[in-house]
């Protein structure tokens, strides 16, 4: 065993142990630990997860900093980077590239940064964040699902409303109404926004030969789909504003998929050549023995070519990048209403698709009021 192989195996074993020791959905301390241990190419992924975990513990300063860091990577243009060159090559899987996430994940990074700006009363930068998220969704491949992130448009409208830009708020709400028939724009005197994030993140799973395709699956054992909410004893009706699983699974094919398909095709051809050369050498060796065995060297060469082709085929890595942001919600529900001051009590009851109650241990509820008296209530069922 060469030293480089030994190092790799040791690293894999340590990584496996480390991952096994960490819970799938962790608090801020464990997400921060994951971030510290993460390789550079995964840093943005773990920064995003730590950002949500920090927000779930109401550590808005840390969360803001983490999302700023992640967004500088997401917004930065990656051209001619070493990681990208590796991921394009035959010998590395797509996951060798620096993580930036798929459009729905990038859009959600802007979503959380925007919420943090809203919590601090910075409506202009909140609006800029939500616009940035809408732009990321515009990179989706399927035309009919491009720029359909209605929740970001709704929050852009809300930021405009709080900032006193009535015309722009109305424009944004009109866009939402086009995507969500039946949408009712927030009342003009509304000053409290309630955001409820339910369920778990869409999962990316490798499929096809060598796991070269990404398919999306819903989170396991997180059945909550709707909620009933009471704020200061009064019921508050929330409307579903987003389905992240829908956003993830309607993204359409990616240009990089065609590169990966090329790797698969190369692997098939190389494997075929190896197999054919090996068979030919095997068959001819029988004839060669019967004919007196004078062509042994030539047959050896054919066998060697076959072996090399097989070796090349085995080392082609067509696996698609299945890293995913693990503490995103599945659905987002929103309400806006007038309210004086910070609410003193927020009660949440969760229900599954069939309307049956769902028990969740650690529902996070945070409330912020800014200097103008506008309130943000943020509820997250899974962390």
């Amino acid at each position, binding site marked *: 065993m060469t030293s480089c*192989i030994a190092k790799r195996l040791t690293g894999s074993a340590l990584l496996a142990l480390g991952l096994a020791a960490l819970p799938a959905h962790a608090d801020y301390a464990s997400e921060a630990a994951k971030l510290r241990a993460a390789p550079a190419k995964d840093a943005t992924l773990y920064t995003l997860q730590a950002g949500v975990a920090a927000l779930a513990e109401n550590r808005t300063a840390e969360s803001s900093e983490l999302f700023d860091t992640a967004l500088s990577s997401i917004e930065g243009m990656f*051209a001619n980077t070493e990681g990208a060159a590796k991921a*394009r090559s035959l010998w590395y899987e797509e996951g060798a590239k620096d993580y930036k996430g798929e459009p729905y994940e990038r859009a959600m990074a802007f979503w959380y940064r925007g919420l943090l700006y809203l919590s601090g009363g910075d409506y202009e930068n909140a609006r800029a964040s939500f616009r940035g998220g809408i*732009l990321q969704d515009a990179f989706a491949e399927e035309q009919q699902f491009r720029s359909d992130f209605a929740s970001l448009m709704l929050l852009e409208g809300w930021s405009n409303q709080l900032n006193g830009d009535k015309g722009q708020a109305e424009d944004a709400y009109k866009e939402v109404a086009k995507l969500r028939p039946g949408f009712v724009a927030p009342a003009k005197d509304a000053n409290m926004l309630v955001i409820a994030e339910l369920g778990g993140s869409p999962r990316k799973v490798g499929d096809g030969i060598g796991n070269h395709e990404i398919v999306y699956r819903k989170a396991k054992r997180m059945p909550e789909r709707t909620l009933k909410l009471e704020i200061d004893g009064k019921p508050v009706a929330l409307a579903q504003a987003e389905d992240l699983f829908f956003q993830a699974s309607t993204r359409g094919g990616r240009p990089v998929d065609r590169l990966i398909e090329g790797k698969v095709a190369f692997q098939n051809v190389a494997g075929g050549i190896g197999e054919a050369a090996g068979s030919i050498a095997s068959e001819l060796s029988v004839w060669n023995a019967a004919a007196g065995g004078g062509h042994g060297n030539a047959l050896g*060469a054919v066998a060697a070519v076959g072996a090399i082709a097989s070796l090349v085929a085995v080392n082609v890595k067509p696996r698609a990048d299945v890293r995913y942001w693990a503490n995103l919600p599945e659905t987002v529900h929103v309400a806006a209403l007038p309210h004086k001051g910070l609410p003193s009590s927020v009660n949440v009851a969760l229900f599954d698709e069939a309307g049956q109650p769902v028990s969740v241990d650690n529902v996070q509820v945070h409330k912020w009021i800014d200097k103008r008296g506008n309130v943000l209530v943020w509820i997250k069922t899974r962390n």
Partner: protein
Amino acid sequence: MTIKLFAGALAALVLAGCATPNLDNSAGRRVVYQDVSTTSQRVAGVGVESQDVVSMTDRMIRDILATPQIAGRATPPRIIIDSEYFANDSSSRINKNLITDRLRIELNRAAQGRLVFVARHYGDMVSKERDAKRNGETDKGTIRATKAKAGADFRLGGRITSLDANSAQSGTLSRYHQISFELIDLEYETIAWSGLFEFKKEAQDDVLYR
């Protein structure tokens, strides 16, 4: 011939085995100062960056000082330059104080007394000290006592706006920024001076991220 082929196969095996994907083994980089008026070679986006802040404020300073109605008055006018009425209506997240602070400070230095700057953003600080002087908590200081704080003649207003365009197919993103600066007459409500700075940036992400 056979030996060469086997040697090649062995070399390929060794090379493949030694490939260490997912390992960033770069040696790192020591801290280096970068010129704030240049684009970073390593990190760049289509938003407002340091070189844009420097360029736009430098141009506005030159323009304001070349305007006689502002900088050529016999009595230096009082001006408020802060971010209170300088709005960000763009899709770029930015701390507006980066722009207004540099504009005020560099303009103050370059004006050399031709303009007087009112520190409205420090209003609370001044009010507290004035109260302390007047209620006897502190003495009156050494310079002077005035009946009221300085009123201003002009105040900065403005807006950052942007227009985005993108191509999902090519991964190209382009952002046009238009940043307007205006000095408003605080008595007559007219615009005494206007300046505009605009730029457009375009970039294409690697095919892996499209």
